[in-house]
């Protein structure tokens, strides 16, 4: 079992006060000539014990609650089937458009909404995966760390169809996604799922850094390219030979990914159905047993202690309200 701790241990120094109810009655006593006249009663004896105990608990539990007890958090080892996947989602302004390159109207859905719908289904189908979510536009954002809490992941995915803004800075997004993996778990199957509708230019210095980082972490890379109708594809060869990365960023990014030396696949999709097909392929590729450590939060026990004190105090109040003496108005002194 885990260690029990206190936030304010000094409150427990008053704990001997809890013994006072054993010495004194909470009720006002009525003096009678002789107890011989009062019949012995087992129910009353039980009630007396309960009241004594109630007094002790009321004081003791209050002090315990004030001391702020907690069970310290632990690290639990868990096993899962699947992979550690970081979804790196493009949040640039162009994701607000439909796959046809228009502002969504009527029953049409934007690329972001389609991605959300499909990713949610993907997450639900792979309940044992460890999934983290990161988003990027000009700057990367950590949305949820790698976790097996599906609810948190789904909530993160729910948030990605908020209107995006700004440009596509893939390099920094990838750097963040890679940083979410722990280096100590290099033996696990890990993958980055990049979802974007365009590519950006990665300058040569960042290329080298990313290349080194990918090699070090050994992460598979899946690029889900949501191609807008009519725009350039990944493999579209341009007319001239002397094309620059600025002219065809998708193609050059693809070439860069291929040169990384890690498992890499690009899926170029032009419709929601094609996207699902691509995800199914990823699903098939990434299935391995995973062992991971999850940190459990500490459990705060003061609420339970206060609840116990409340119950005991209520019992005492009931007894106090029911208190009577002999005679009409309290009777004998």
């Amino acid at each position, binding site marked *: 079992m885990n260690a029990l701790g206190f936030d304010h241990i000094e409150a427990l120094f008053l704990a001997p006060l809890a013994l006072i109810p054993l010495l004194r009655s909470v*009720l006002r*006593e009525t003096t009678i*000539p002789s107890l011989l*006249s*009062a019949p012995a009663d087992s129910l009353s004896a039980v009630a007396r014990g309960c009241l004594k105990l109630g007094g002790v608990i009321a004081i003791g539990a209050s002090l315990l609650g004030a001391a702020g007890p907690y069970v310290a958090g632990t690290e639990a080892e868990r096993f899962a089937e699947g992979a550690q996947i970081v979804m790196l989602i493009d949040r640039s302004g162009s994701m607000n458009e439909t796959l046809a390159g228009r502002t969504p109207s009527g029953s049409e859905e934007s690329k972001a909404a389609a991605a959300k719908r499909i990713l949610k289904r993907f997450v639900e189908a792979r309940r044992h995966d460890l999934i983290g979510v990161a988003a990027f536009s000009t700057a990367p954002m950590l949305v949820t760390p790698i976790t097996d809490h599906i609810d948190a992941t789904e909530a993160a995915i729910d948030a990605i169809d908020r209107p995006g803004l700004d440009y596509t800075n893939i390099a920094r997004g990838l750097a963040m996604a890679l940083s979410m993996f722990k280096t100590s778990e290099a033996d696990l199957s890990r993958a980055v799922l990049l979802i974007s509708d365009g590519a950006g230019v990665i300058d040569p210095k960042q290329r080298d850094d990313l290349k080194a980082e990918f090699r070090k972490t050994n992460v598979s890379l899946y690029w889900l390219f949501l191609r807008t109708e009519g725009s350039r594809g990944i493999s579209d060869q341009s007319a001239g030979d002397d094309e620059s990365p600025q002219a065809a960023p998708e193609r050059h990014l693809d070439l860069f990914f291929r040169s990384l030396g890690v498992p890499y696949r690009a899926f170029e999709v032009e419709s929601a159905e094609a996207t699902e097909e691509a995800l199914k392929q990823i699903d098939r590729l990434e299935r391995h047993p995973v062992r991971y450590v999850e940190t459990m939060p500490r459990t705060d026990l003061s609420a339970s202690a206060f609840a116990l004190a409340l119950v005991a105090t209520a019992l005492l109040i009931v007894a106090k309200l029911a208190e009577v003496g002999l*005679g009409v108005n309290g009777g004998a002194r």
Partner: protein
Amino acid sequence: MNGIVDILYRPRGRFAANHVGAHVSSEVGGIGVFRDQAPFMRYPDARRIDIRATLRDPFGATYVRRFEQRASIDVYALVDLSGSMGFVGAANRFRVAVDLCAALAYSVTRVGDRFGVFSYEGALIDRSTIPATRSRRAALAAVERLGAETPRGSSAKGVLDAAAALGATRKLVFLISDFRWPEPLLEQAFDALSPHDVAPLVLIDSLESAPPKWGVLALRDSESGGRRLLVMRPALQRRWIEAEQARRRNLARLSSLRSRAPIYIEDSCDPVDLSIRLTAA
């Protein structure tokens, strides 16, 4: 001492006394109710020679008339000073006892009898104890001293000492207490007092026999200091009242062969009512 009405009483049994007084006694004397005739040689009272009986006697013996001498008696109040007598309920129990003693002291000395007070708790209390005196002043002073006492004894075993101090000659004894005694002591006390004409005056309080129907009652014993919590409910109230009635029956049973029937004085003492009970044959 205003408003005190005489408490009348009639002793039971034959009292031996040297003083002429108001009550029937076993003494024979020259005046009073005719008792019998005795030979002059046995009762040489020349003034009471019964001429008719003397002449009628074939052997010529002289006879004397004898009369029942009315005598004064000794009356004692034995007052319990144990803690339970300090109970204040509908009435202040000790106050009732002291007032009763004062009334007795006044009435007893007025009729020519001697009055004494013994007070006791665990033992006899000398301060407020006075042997029988014919002086009303001394008797009332003794009662006043008694009133200055505080009942706080933890037992009433002193009643046995008081009984021993009374001696063997028959006396009228008012045993004033609430009789919240353990049963063995009750039995011993009635045994020890059996040579005397004992009138147990039982002080009871209307609150004692009227417990509440519902509620939580925390009780403390006035003598032992013991505590008891009672969760009152109709069944328990009934048991309480039954226990009280059983106590009275028990007291009546214990006193039946050794003394008069107990006289219950609830809350306050009515001298007329008490007189009727004390003079009943």
